[in-house]
């Protein structure tokens, strides 16, 4: 078929089932946009490329399929970098497509030229730069295959402008093979057998469910296994919501700002089943202290995660869902297992920590606001978060009911992620309410996406806990830097209600618990992009707190 590179590219996207693209045009990707004009693919025009990458990321996390973002060469491409890095750290599949200067200009420091492949190599699974139009269909197919299979990750395609314009006889392959890439799906059954033996003989077993459970969609399998063996389930922050948090066996997230009962109980366990987790420092504290005297079973699709941060006893390499199914299938029919003592202890610890932290003495607090949000919000709603105190408060005080409905930048910790990601999530699932749990500092970073949310009719709710400061930094300065407060005061700037209105969105000030409830209800009913501005006392801390460099047992419970 005689086609231009640009046409071949758009046709290849259509063949992958892509029906939405987040992006911004510029000189070097104009041929691509010209072909988008005559395609059915919906284009969402962003106001900054970083948001395009976050939207594609949010879309991908909800859809379980790669999200696509477009940017031009040079600054367009570098603006994507934070979003690509965010997706990489959280194993989210996006296909980022950048324009590049024409082949003959590459390496000449041309206008808007940058070596985006050099820049992105550390934060992508692979980067392609097709050097002829002929290569395009195969490149696109490979890009989606790599992004979505195995451990998902971003893939970059850098398209020189003249390759987009070149006319060539192109063919569209049905299948591609990459000889250096063989993701392992099915677990080794001997290791599965070993794992079962360990689990059945454990006295104090615990499950640590990580992000891999969410990615693999193994919610059902996780719940079955936990219930069959009556094992309490903690999650990492990335795994938050992998297990329904209202379930009697649920302990909630562990980690720096984990639930006290989860942090406490995980240090008491004798066998740990870690599922799709990379033992991050934020989750487990000190690597040398975590898991002392504990037998560890580790399920992960990425062989390089086994033993990276933590030596384990039984590695199971494979897809989480396939591995859990294998375990369930091989469990004996009659399970003679008495966890009574351990479950009694779990109950006792849960009870002990129930009211462990005194509520911050204000009429409106972050905790109360989030509890209210949970109360009013339908169970199937999707929640994204910004980064900082708002994020950790969400982790502590917002219980996820339906697995796979909670998304946050957990690895890179990117401020500004939550809002564009919520728009991407809304595009993926328009029928459910989507809320960005935000702080003022973080929301400020990508707030211009309000224009996108309003104009593209992708209404989301920004639940803005506004403490007029960079709250988490302020908390660290209060706790570790003798209250030498610097660089944290945002001075109630801007007025977020007026800002929302300036973008044609709905702005609501909510200064009492009643106003918060009304605000959420109004937003849900109106189905309009809404910013609910909730003033929070700048001194309210996130507690408990495991200070960096300490173990999970060293929780700080009060300020």
């Amino acid at each position: 078929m005689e086609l231009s590179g640009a046409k071949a590219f758009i046709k290849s996207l259509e063949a992958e089932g892509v029906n939405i693209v987040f992006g911004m045009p510029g000189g070097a990707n104009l041929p691509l946009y010209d072909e988008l004009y005559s395609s059915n693919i919906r284009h969402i025009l962003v106001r900054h490329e970083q948001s395009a990458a976050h939207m594609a990321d949010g879309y991908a996390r909800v859809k379980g399929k790669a999200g696509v973002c477009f940017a031009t060469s040079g600054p367009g491409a570098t603006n994507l970098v934070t979003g690509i890095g965010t997706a990489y750290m959280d194993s989210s599949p996006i296909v980022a497509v950048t324009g590049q200067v024409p082949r003959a200009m590459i390496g000449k420091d041309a206008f808007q030229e940058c070596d985006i492949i050099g820049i992105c190599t550390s934060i992508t699974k692979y980067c392609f730069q097709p050097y002829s139009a002929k290569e395009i269909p195969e490149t696109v197919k490979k890009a989606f295959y790599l992004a979505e299979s195995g451990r998902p990750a971003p893939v970059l395609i850098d398209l020189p402008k003249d390759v987009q314009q070149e006319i060539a006889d192109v063919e569209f392959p049905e299948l591609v093979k990459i000889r250096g890439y063989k993701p392992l799906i099915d677990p080794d059954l001997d290791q599965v057998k070993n794992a079962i033996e360990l689990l059945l003989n454990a006295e104090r077993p615990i499950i640590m469910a990580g992000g891999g459970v969410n990615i693999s969609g193994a919610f059902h399998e996780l719940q079955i296994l936990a219930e069959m063996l009556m094992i309490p389930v903690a999650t990492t922050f990335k795994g938050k919501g992998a297990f329904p948090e209202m379930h009697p066996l649920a302990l909630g997230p562990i980690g720096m700002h984990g639930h006290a009962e989860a942090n406490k109980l995980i240090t008491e366990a004798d066998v740990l089943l870690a599922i799709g987790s990379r033992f991050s420092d934020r989750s487990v504290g000190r690597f040398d202290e975590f898991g002392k005297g504990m037998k560890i079973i580790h399920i992960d699709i990425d062989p390089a995660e086994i033993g990276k941060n933590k030596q384990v006893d039984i590695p199971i390499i494979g897809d989480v869902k396939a591995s859990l199914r294998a375990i369930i299938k091989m469990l004996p029919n009659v399970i003679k297992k008495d966890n009574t003592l351990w479950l009694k202890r779990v109950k006792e610890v849960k009870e002990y920590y129930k009211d462990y932290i005194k509520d911050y003495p204000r009429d409106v607090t972050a905790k109360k606001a989030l509890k209210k949000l949970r109360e009013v919000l339908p169970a199937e709603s999707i929640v994204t978060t910004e980064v900082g105190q708002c994020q950790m408060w969400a982790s502590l005080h917002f219980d996820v009911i339906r697995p796979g409905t909670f998304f946050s930048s957990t690895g890179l910790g990117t401020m500004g992620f939550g809002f564009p990601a919520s728009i991407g999530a809304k595009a993926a699932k328009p029928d459910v309410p989507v809320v960005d749990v935000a702080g003022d500092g973080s929301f400020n970073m990508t707030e211009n996406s309000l224009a996108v949310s309003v104009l593209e009719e992708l209404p989301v709710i920004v639940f803005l806990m506004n403490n007029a400061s960079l709250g988490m930094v302020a908390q660290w300065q209060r706790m570790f830097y003798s209250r030498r407060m610097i660089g944290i005061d945002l001075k109630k700037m801007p007025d977020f209600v007026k800002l929302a209105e300036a973008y044609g969105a709905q702005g609501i000030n909510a200064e009492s618990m009643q106003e918060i409830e009304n605000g959420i209800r109004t937003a849900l009913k109106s189905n309009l992009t809404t910013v609910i501005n909730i003033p929070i006392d700048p001194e309210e801390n996130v507690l408990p707190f495991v200070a960096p460099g300490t173990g999970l047992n060293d929780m700080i419970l009060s300020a």
Partner: protein
Amino acid sequence: MFSIISALVENKPGVLFRLTNMIRARNFNIDSLSVGPTEHSDLSRITITMDQDEHMINQLVKQMGKLIDIVEITRLDINNTVYRELALIKVKIKGREERTEIINLTNIFRGKIIDISKNSIMIEITGTKDKIDAFIGLIKEYNIVEMARTGITALARGVKSE
């Protein structure tokens, strides 16, 4: 412990960059790296040596295994592997006596004199790292002007049973 990692990689631009970039980003410390063509025109062989603890070596092998352009990766069994390095050493000489001494030493190490002038001599020597280190240790007493080493390249002995 001293380890040799041998990888077959796609023979195309950017592959070495991806590998060395990963090595830098993950803070691995390698001793040598050599790259060259193989019997297949579309594959190159990369040989890396590293003297680190077991954990680091395992991690490097696993992280390399994740790179899409690496088609096959093996940690060679040192006891069942032939490994060689080549060094070129240029030495400044003062007189005949010195020249004779250097030529004798080179012969003992089964090296070759590949260039000679009135006041300099260039030696080619191949062998294991230890052998080359030992030779350089001796020749250091003279005036080494310049030196280039290739890093180790290696192959497992015998033929893999199919």
